[in-house]
């Protein structure tokens, strides 16, 4: 979230699209209810199903799964052509006025530079035109035909209300009603909030779904503003934290990136990470990258990381390609992997194409599962009849299952969607011999380090030199690890301008990332978390819920990254002179001498408004990007591409159907289904009563939703002779499930490009372990393809067929 949960109460319009907060985030959705009740704001829900969020809405529009960009592209066209934009904001705080290279093009569904053989673009032309001074050229009037604003206008001119209806199935008049409501928030004192989740990410163009709404929010001046923002609801309790700390193939904590093969030394690595400002007077805060990197290396290796050895540059692996989970299982499937660890993760149910996952796991030499619960992944080798029909004798994998603690049995911090780091406390001992994950990792580390010290082996240096100076090396305390993440001074740090002035004494916990150094005198595991555990103690455990300003910011409750800032980009809530656009909802402002306010200003506090620095300080431009240059693989403007399994051709450019650069592995392409065999669109989702595959182990929730079901519209049910309660089979080109049919009014048939299309709803919670009845699981159906940028699997739009199996038995 750019904003925070309680801030939703300050909005003037809520749009929930790509999520279903009322069911998946019920206690957060209460802030929508609050806004509706006290401030009479409207709620728009756009979704393939009439969800419980929709039941609370003032305006619901059903669309076909996988057509969000077509809908939102139509909104952009409406806003631009009806002049419903926040002009001061767009002209000054976005790259609308910047001039784009003359050789950038978009034709017949493809941007310039496409290489069909590689399924990739050469993105060189997707960039700004630079002047002789090295800065981007701009036309503040937004009239130059090569400026971003004009190119955007041309790009979305094709997204007429008629085209929106043809692709999405949303009636033109309903679509225009949505446009009108959204357009009202272009007023300087009106704001809309966008709430989304995996309904947008789980598509082969997931990143671009989100980008399209981000563009709308920028055109309306709704980013950085209380009650506004792009609010990713996030699926799991600490997926924000796990990502912040870089537990992904290509990351270093704090969104730094692992080096590539072609970057042989630190100097080369830093060459592309200099972040030289692209416009005069800009902050370009990533210019501090080297301070974050060096402080991280010092946290990993202490005295062993020196300037002379390039801060242990070669001790981190280099990447040739990103090894996301889909690639991992592809490699496993090819027999190229020996071992795999699953820490609190149940991939056998979580990733697409169960058959492929099962075959892949069978090729492993060893599998280690660390989990509090008996997951399906840990028992993939066990026969569970039709729900897991395997022969254990034929599966040669050695499997370990290690019991871990749950939240109630440990101290530590989780990061919620609003970027709050909240500390929690242990309230009970774990059952049996269960151990905290930290202890398991520590025991493995110590044992392996002993082996490397004794036997030697492949490149042991980074491992045997890893800093592990905890009081009990076999059981580091969460508090010790949290202090390490925050960082401290490793030597006395003096003011570079006046060496007689001591800034930090050796050993001091740092109070903010502004104190980090690139000379090895500071360390910090994750620069973004600097300030979370200072000399004043654990800031994440703070419990003062006072709310100066009344916006719900509660700045002394827990701690929020970055720098305890509650609303990101908040400088953009003020005009160019530093005065709040909406004085009734003041967040930060220029008081004549400095930036101040109820929130921590997202700006250099002494930077005078007349100096002209832009509010998006992380970008070298200082402005937000309506045109993303080459930063996304599939285009600088979002374009509607069909899902990989679609019931119709792409109405905008029939020759380019799905995302032309999304990665498809050999063998997966062959099992995409065709509409003549699988005529219905399906989408997966969660229920209010269940959380993924955990709560089927929880007695109460297992009673509330005991059995696997699918949702089918009344019209399709009638066509197939299916009544509510009948057993049905849902089949894709990869597998089939048997489930109870819920016949519903909540999913209507849509007319898409003149063709009647039904949508089938497939909730995802059942497997073969736990307290519910056994189920087959939605991922037997889903396709093995991901978003072109993040490789998030396309769970939200695929093709199936439905067949009645038998009468209701209950």
């Amino acid at each position, binding site marked *: 979230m750019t904003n925070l949960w309680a801030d939703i109460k300050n909005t003037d319009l809520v749009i929930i699209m790509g999520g279903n907060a009322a069911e998946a985030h019920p206690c957060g959705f209460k802030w929508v209810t609050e806004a509706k009740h006290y401030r009479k704001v409207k709620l728009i829900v756009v979704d393939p199903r009439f969800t419980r969020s929709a039941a609370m809405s003032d305006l619901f529009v059903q669309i076909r799964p996988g057509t969000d960009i077509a809908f939102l592209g139509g909104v952009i066209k409406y806003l631009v052509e009806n002049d419903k934009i926040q002009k001061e904001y767009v002209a000054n705080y976005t790259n609308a006025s910047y001039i784009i290279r003359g050789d950038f093009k978009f034709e017949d569904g493809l941007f310039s530079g496409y290489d069909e053989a590689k399924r990739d673009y050469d993105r060189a032309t997707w960039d700004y035109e630079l002047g002789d001074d090295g800065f981007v050229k701009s036309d503040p009037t937004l009239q130059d035909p090569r400026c971003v604003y004009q190119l955007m206008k041309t790009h979305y001119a094709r997204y007429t209300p008629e085209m929106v209806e043809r692709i999405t199935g949303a009636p033109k008049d309903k679509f225009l009603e949505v446009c009108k409501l959204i357009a009202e928030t272009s007023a300087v004192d009106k704001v809309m909030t966008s709430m989304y989740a995996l309904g947008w990410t789980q598509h082969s163009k997931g990143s671009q779904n989100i980008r399209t709404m981000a563009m709308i929010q920028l055109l309306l001046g709704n980013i950085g503003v209380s009650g506004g923002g792009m609010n990713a609801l996030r699926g799991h309790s600490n997926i924000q934290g796990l990502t912040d700390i870089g537990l992904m193939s290509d990351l270093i904590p704090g969104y730094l990136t692992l080096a590539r093969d072609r970057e042989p030394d630190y100097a080369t690595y830093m060459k592309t990470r200099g972040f030289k400002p692209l416009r005069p007077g800009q902050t370009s805060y990533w210019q501090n990258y080297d301070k974050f990197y060096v402080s991280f290396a010092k946290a990993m290796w202490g005295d062993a990381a020196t300037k002379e050895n390039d801060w242990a540059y070669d001790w981190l692996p280099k990447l040739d390609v990103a090894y996301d989970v889909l690639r991992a299982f592809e490699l496993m499937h090819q027999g190229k992997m020996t071992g795999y660890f699953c820490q609190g*993760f149940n991939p056998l149910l979580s990733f697409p194409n169960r058959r492929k996952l099962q075959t892949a796991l069978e090729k492993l030499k060893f599998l280690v599962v660390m989990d509090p619960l008996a997951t399906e992944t840990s028992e993939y080798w066990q026969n569970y009849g039709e729900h897991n029909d395997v022969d254990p004798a034929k599966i040669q*994998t050695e499997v370990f299952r290690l019991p871990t603690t749950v939240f109630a049995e440990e101290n530590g911090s989780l990061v919620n969607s609003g970027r709050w780091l909240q500390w929690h406390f242990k309230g009970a001992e774990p059952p049996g*011999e269960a151990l905290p994950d930290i202890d398991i990792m520590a025991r493995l580390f110590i044992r392996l380090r002993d082996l490397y010290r004794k036997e030697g082996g492949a490149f042991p240096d980074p491992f045997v030199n890893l800093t592990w100076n905890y009081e009990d090396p076999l059981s580091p305390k969460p508090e010790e690890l949290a202090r390490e993440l925050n960082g401290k001074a490793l030597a006395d740090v003096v003011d570079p301008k006046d060496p007689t002035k001591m800034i930090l004494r050796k050993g001091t916990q740092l109070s903010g990332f502004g104190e980090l150094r690139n000379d090895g005198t500071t360390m910090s595991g994750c620069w973004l978390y600097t300030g979370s555990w200072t000399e004043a103690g654990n800031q994440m455990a703070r419990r003062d819920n006072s709310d100066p300003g009344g916006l719900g910011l509660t700045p002394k409750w827990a701690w929020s990254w970055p720098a305890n800032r509650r609303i990101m980009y908040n400088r953009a809530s003020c005009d160019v002179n530093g005065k709040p656009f909406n004085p009734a909802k003041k967040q930060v402002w220029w008081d004549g001498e400095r930036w101040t306010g109820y929130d921590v200003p997202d700006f250099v506090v002494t930077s005078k408004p007349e100096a002209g620095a832009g509010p998006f300080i992380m970008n070298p431009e200082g402005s937000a990007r309506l045109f993303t240059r080459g930063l996304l693989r599939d285009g600088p403007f979002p374009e509607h591409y069909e899902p990989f399994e679609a019931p119709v051709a792409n109405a905008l450019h029939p020759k380019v159907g799905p995302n032309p650069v999304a990665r498809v592995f050999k063998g997966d392409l062959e099992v995409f289904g065709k509409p003549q065999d699988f005529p219905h669109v399906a989408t997966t989702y969660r229920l209010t009563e269940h959380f993924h595959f955990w709560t089927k*182990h929880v*007695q109460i929730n297992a009673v509330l939703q005991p059995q696997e079901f699918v949702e089918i519209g009344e019209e399709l049910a009638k066509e197939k002779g299916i009544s509510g309660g009948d057993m049905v089979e849902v089949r894709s080109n990869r597998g089939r499930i048997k489930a109870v049919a819920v016949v519903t009014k909540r999913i209507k048939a849509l007319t898409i490009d003149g063709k009647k299309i039904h949508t089938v709803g497939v909730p995802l919670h059942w497997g073969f372990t736990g307290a519910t009845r056994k189920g087959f699981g939605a991922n037997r159906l889903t396709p093995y393809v991901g978003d072109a940028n993040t490789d998030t699997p396309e769970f939200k739009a695929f093709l199936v067929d439905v067949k009645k199996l038998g009468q209701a038995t209950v």
Partner: protein
Amino acid sequence: MGAVTVSRRGLFKLTGAAVGASTLTALGFSPAAAQAAVRAFKLERTTETRNTCPYCSVGCGVIMYSMGDGAKNVKGKIIHIEGDPDHPTNRGTLCPKGAALIDFINSKTRLLYPQHRAPGAKEWTRITWDQAIDKIARLMKDDRDKNFIAKNADGQTVNRWISTGFLAASATSNETAWATYKVVRSLGMVVFDNQARV
């Protein structure tokens, strides 16, 4: 709350007694008899511990009530969990998942001991932590020593290990994440991912 300052615990005691008395009065007992008959509330003897819900990322505050005084031979047990009324996001409320957290802690399918399944076996075998860590460390080292890639085909130093992978969780703490990151990355592992996508 006006001028009177009452701690949450104190307030609970006051209202608890008042509700007990008035309910019994409504049932026809006289106040004097009622006060003699009301049992002490179970929650009064518990310890309150603050935590946050481990499911979605709204991050609702919860209060866990546990029995046991922390003495050496006493095993604390959580007997009740409810929303934290002071929490600025959920303000005391919980959803159907959060409200059932007690059953997650006490789930019948919670794992209690390290287990091992030999190749081709039909059953689990219980093993000790030491046995588990020994075997896993050996498997890891053998694979790493055999398949570690120090240089790529072009002779560039890459120092990566791709034949063993690690899937990190979505609900472990930042502190677990950091300990995990340190171990996994210093081994050169790059087949490393979390649950952000699903």
